[in-house]
């Protein structure tokens, strides 16, 4: 190799190729993907998260929860995601259109959280129980006790506070961050059916614009 310009041109072309495909072409393919307007339900899905839940997503990001949890369900014949109850259908790109920062996760030290809210509702897990779980930890999950403030009970107990076994005078009050995180986790649900998630046999009408 003798020619510098040719060498740098080669480098440029090599990088431009993968950049064009993986950054520009994916953007052209589904960069403008919008929520699906479901006429029968009279709403567009997925629905944008509400205030507290949206702030909870930032807590999820800044504590690095995505280091141990994924938010992507694989299709039924690829792994055992469905058997674990993580979701009846595969996650699709449309599920993420409202997220400013998409954290799919790369490790499953803990369970997948794509449908955590729906799962919690089905199992009767409420915000108070989830707060207690966050405070105590379990298995490989550390205790997030720093998301709570221990304080003396004065007058009436705070509504969301956890009790401390053995010391009735004190209570554990969840911080705003803890409440936001719990609201976020309980809001997680991606089970709405879109044209692209329906089985070909189930979809009576041909799904337009999907592959």
């Amino acid at each position, binding site marked *: 190799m003798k020619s510098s310009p040719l060498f740098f041109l080669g480098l440029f072309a*090599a990088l431009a190729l*993968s*950049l064009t495909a993986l950054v520009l072409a994916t953007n052209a393919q589904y960069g403008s993907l919008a929520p699906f307007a479901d006429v029968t339900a009279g709403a567009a899905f997925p629905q944008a998260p509400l205030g507290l839940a949206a702030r909870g997503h930032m807590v999820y990001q800044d504590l690095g929860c995505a280091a*141990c949890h994924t938010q992507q369900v694989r299709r039924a014949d*690829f792994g*055992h995601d469905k058997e*674990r109850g993580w979701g009846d259908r595969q996650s699709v790109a449309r599920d993420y259109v409202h997220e400013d920062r998409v954290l799919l996760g790369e490790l*499953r*030290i803990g369970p997948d959280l794509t449908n955590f809210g729906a799962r919690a509702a089905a199992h009767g897990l409420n915000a108070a129980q989830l707060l207690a779980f966050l405070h105590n930890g379990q298995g490989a999950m*550390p205790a997030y006790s720093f998301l709570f403030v221990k304080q003396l009970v004065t007058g009436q107990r705070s509504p969301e506070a956890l009790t401390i076994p053995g010391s009735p005078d004190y209570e554990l009050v969840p911080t705003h961050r803890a409440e936001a995180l719990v609201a976020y986790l309980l809001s997680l649900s991606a089970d709405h059916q879109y044209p692209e998630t329906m089985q070909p046999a189930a979809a009576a009408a041909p799904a337009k614009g999907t592959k």
Partner: protein
Amino acid sequence: MTTTPTNAAQPEVSDIDTSARCPLLILIGSAIMWLVVGGVLALIASIQLHTPGFLACCPSLTYGRMEAAQETAFLYGWAINAGLAVSLWLLARLGGAPLRAAGLASVGAIFWNLALTLGLVGIFAGDLTGFAFFQLPAYVQPIMFVAYAAVAVAGVLAWTGRRNAFTFATQWYAVAPLFVFPWVFSVAQVTLLFAPVHGTIQAVVAAWFGQNLGALVLAPFALAAVYYLLPKISGRPVRYYDYAGHAFWTLLVIGGWAGGRQLIGGPVPVWVATTGIIASVLLLFHYVVVGVNLSGALCPRGSLALRFTAIGLKAYVLGGAINAVTSIRAVAKFSQFTFFSVAQTQLLLDGAFTFMIVGALYFLVPRLVGKPWPSSALIRIHFAAILSGLVLKVGGLFVAGWIQGGDLNHAAVSFPTIAGDVRMWLIAATAGQVLTLLGSLALALNFARLLVVRAEQPAAELFRPPAAMEVPVS
């Protein structure tokens, strides 16, 4: 087929080396400092994996942030600093002229490390981006881009101002990352942080960036060093050198595509994963050619520097092969999302990259400062510690990943049970992390002593013949 990069009559310590002394010592000193800091952080994160209560008291030390911080300290602190140092040194040496723009490179190196320090503080404060290999907060990233470019200018000038029009494989591999990193780094900054793309395209871009950082920035830095050291130290030729160019261009053209294999089965277009798989398999050609080219380095015959290189090279080829196998969908189904993939990354970073670069540092630092290493015992301790550390760490994680993959595919096995099943192997990985840190401390101690001891003899006499150069002569 036989190619020796430099003229044997050239003096071993020359103006070329001294011209680069200031920026290179800043880069190498910072690199070693970050290697130790990153080792401490990695040890803490490793303990937290099997003992979640460890340092769980405050948000800054929680596992998610610790993991991001240790990865950042390793990649941007150790790997890029050391890689840049090796690259500049090789380009100046093979260019046959003193380093130009060395002052600019020094300033760039200082700013890079200051910004990185700020970035790590930011990560501990909760400003991590959440993207693997790209965790630095948005507010330090533009500074780091400019700082890297300032250092890279010196390398590019050494390439364009070279005395010999013909270039050797070392120079291609050394100059490519100077160009690739600013490009992919700036694209990732814009498309992930400042004008983010929508939805899961972010995941595709993040995978593309991570793949480029590993395969087209860090790996070339390390390979540049090996293509130089092998003929230089052992006197053995690069075998089938004619194919080295093919291996280089295969890596450059195909390497960036392989990131898609991390997204198999994910909510992205299927073609992204498929091209990732095809690219990972095609890259085998690169690994085979590099392995054959440099097979002379596999039996080091008494050279301490080459002993590191030999392990690094084996880890590199093995890592490439494992990446290709686990990219196949039937295998990915089990290995995906488990410690198996962590082990793969560590094999390539802690194994391949670190060993190859450390081999180069043991060779070049004495020439840079004109003094031999004060202790060959510390070099031997370093080698034994990081080799046993690597085996324990990567081996432990591979087994843990295997068990975890099996457990995850039995829906009845709960997560606390899985944590119990893999605990012993994660403890083995922690033991490996301890050994790795001890090895890094040996390097840091040796380096610090080298800077303070005074040379007893005129340096030039110490530095030939080549075999005596990376160990003290006394």
